[in-house]
């Protein structure tokens, strides 16, 4: 099974940059250093459930934002769900996760109740961070989600510190941190890569390369073409995968987690993916053509997984049941969040310090 598939558009080809993973794909040059054993259809169906639920929650949130019910910066991961779900299924609930402002998918994939996700984005008292954090600050320590972050790359050393803690205590927990392609050029990434490599920390650096940082394509600002090659310079094991195929993501993270648990140190994963929605709610998307986006819909991870399930003899009826169950989950979550009260005004002043 090929791990990354890419096409290069004519304009991009000149620069040697791949922008796409839609079906008219070229196989990736690097063979994966791990096997991608097929997952059972039971597991794949569960994954489909979670991925679809993430999609529906975020679609709901985009609607709510367009109605003016959500302020601030609300970033969805529509089109990127396979990264979150594959990774979550490949790690343990007691592993540690940090990620970016684009974190609803990770929160739900880890097991955070979608009602609490929606409530948090809406700023309700029942949100996972009591409405104080909002969309950019999902948290759920019970499921190992230690925080999502509004500052590009800031969460990356946090994960390294969690990995250090686990190692100091002799635990076999690992830490997993997600970031975007644009994050690679924050200085702290470099600093963290070096320490993680030098100290052989049990941490996985997972880049969701969706080709854009905000409105700027990564090739416009990066001197390095194949981003996954960068961490190799520190001696970090580094691979590139197709982040829209949940089975591949699962296999890659399982392999990296195993390496981390057995003391082999950090792994870097560049997952090629694509966001089908705007950078954030309200994004006018003038920086890409509708054609480009529509073309990418063919590689929508939900379609990829649905087709996989059909190919493995799961019936349309069985899928319809999942889709129905997701609709109910969503309805429950929305009901929970919408009927939750606002936080009490006094809450504005609490939780600054732990008392």
């Amino acid at each position: 099974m090929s791990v990354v598939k890419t096409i290069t558009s004519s304009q991009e080809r000149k620069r040697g940059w791949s922008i796409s993973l839609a079906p008219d794909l070229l196989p990736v040059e690097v063979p994966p250093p791990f096997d991608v054993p097929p997952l059972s259809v039971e597991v794949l169906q569960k994954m489909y459930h979670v991925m679809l639920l993430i999609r529906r929650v975020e679609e709901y949130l985009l609607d709510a934002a367009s109605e003016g019910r959500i302020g601030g910066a609300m970033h969805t991961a529509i089109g990127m769900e396979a990264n979150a779900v594959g990774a979550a299924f490949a790690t343990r609930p007691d592993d540690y996760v940090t990620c970016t402002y684009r974190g609803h998918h990770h929160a739900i994939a880890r097991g955070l109740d979608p009602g609490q996700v929606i409530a948090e984005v809406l700023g309700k008292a029942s949100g996972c961070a009591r409405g104080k954090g909002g969309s950019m600050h999902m948290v759920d320590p019970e499921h190992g989600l230690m925080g999502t972050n509004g500052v590009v790359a800031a969460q990356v050393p946090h994960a390294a510190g969690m990995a250090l803690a686990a190692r100091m205590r002799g635990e076999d927990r690992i830490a997993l941190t997600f970031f975007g392609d644009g994050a690679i050029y924050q200085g702290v990434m470099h600093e963290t890569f070096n320490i993680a490599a030098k100290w052989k920390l049990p941490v996985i650096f997972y880049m969701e390369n969706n080709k854009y940082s905000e409105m700027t394509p990564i090739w416009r600002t990066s001197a390095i073409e194949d981003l996954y090659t960068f961490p190799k310079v520190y001696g970090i094991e580094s691979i590139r995968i197709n982040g829209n195929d949940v089975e591949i993501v699962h296999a890659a993270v399982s392999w990296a987690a195993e390496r981390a648990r057995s003391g082999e140190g950090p792994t870097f994963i560049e997952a090629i993916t694509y966001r089908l929605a705007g950078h954030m709610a309200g994004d006018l998307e003038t920086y890409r053509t509708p054609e480009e986006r529509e073309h990418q819909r063919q590689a929508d991870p939900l379609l990829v997984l649905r087709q996989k399930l059909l190919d493995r003899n799961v019936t349309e009826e069985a899928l319809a049941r999942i889709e129905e169950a997701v609709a109910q989950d969503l309805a429950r979550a929305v009901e929970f969040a919408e009927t939750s009260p606002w936080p009490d005004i006094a809450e504005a002043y609490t939780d600054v310090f732990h008392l």
Partner: protein
Amino acid sequence: MVQMRKTTYLQALNEALREEMRRDERVFIMGEDVAYYGGLFRVTRNLLEEFGPQRVMDTPISEQAFIGMALGAAAVGMRPVVEIMYMDFTLVAADQIFNQIGKYAYMTGGRVYLPLVIRGQQGGGKNYGSQHSQSLDSLYAHFPGLRVVAPATPYDAKGLLKAAIRDDNPVVFLEHKMLYFTTGEVPPPDVDYTVPIGLAEVKRPGRDLTLVTYSYCLLEALAAAEELAEKYGIDVEVVDLRTVNPMDTETIWASVARTGRLLAVHESYANCGVGAEIVARAYEEVPHLLKAPARRLGMPPVPIPVSRPLEQEILPWKRHIMATVLEMMHERVAYA
């Protein structure tokens, strides 16, 4: 006399950049999404088209490097204007701003000086949460060596941005996300004007109390003043500081000499903030002018929550301004 026209704060900024880039080819722009996209908030819109990619440059998300590069370019005679997407992120480059840029002229005994501008928007009110809503004007004013400008009106925004670009010193130019679509009278594009850095302006004359503020809080203060006048007959004089550093205490003290009462309001954290500074200076320089204790109002010492009612609770806006003024005028109000 110049025929004014109504335009937005956003448009005024864009014009200032365009006009200064036309006037002086040493001026150039760096930042995230500033070139092809025209800036997340569209302040640099269409500048790439006119000035080309040599003068309007999309950077990677590397604030330390490109702010440091602005220092280097300015040190050798260029006039860089750097956009920071949210001023909160200047903290990623705090060493470059405070340990380098603010001190360079001094550390070199005046042999190298830095004509550069770091600009971007800050402030709350739109539920952006703890890391995208801070006002950092007090921080920039705390460290030596930076001019800090925070205009509230389109006219001042354009005039001060032009002045900032022409200034031979580093200027931190603070916009506010609530101001971009506010409108005001501004001279047409071909009329060159600047607003001098370091000059406050009385935006509303009044007899009872001097309220010093700047940036978006000015609008809240003016609204509060209207309501205080209508409902309580309290006549507040509103001084728009416009420049936070250096501070035009002359204009403030002249106003306090008339009113005898002083309240400073800003959206940065109150603790060790500009308001505290104004109060401290008042007692250093003009204690005799004060008929009642001088006060300040800023953000309470909490990170900024996303939840609407919580954010509204902590922003030092109209409701809190009115309450504070009423407290300060409490004898007058009691008898009113």
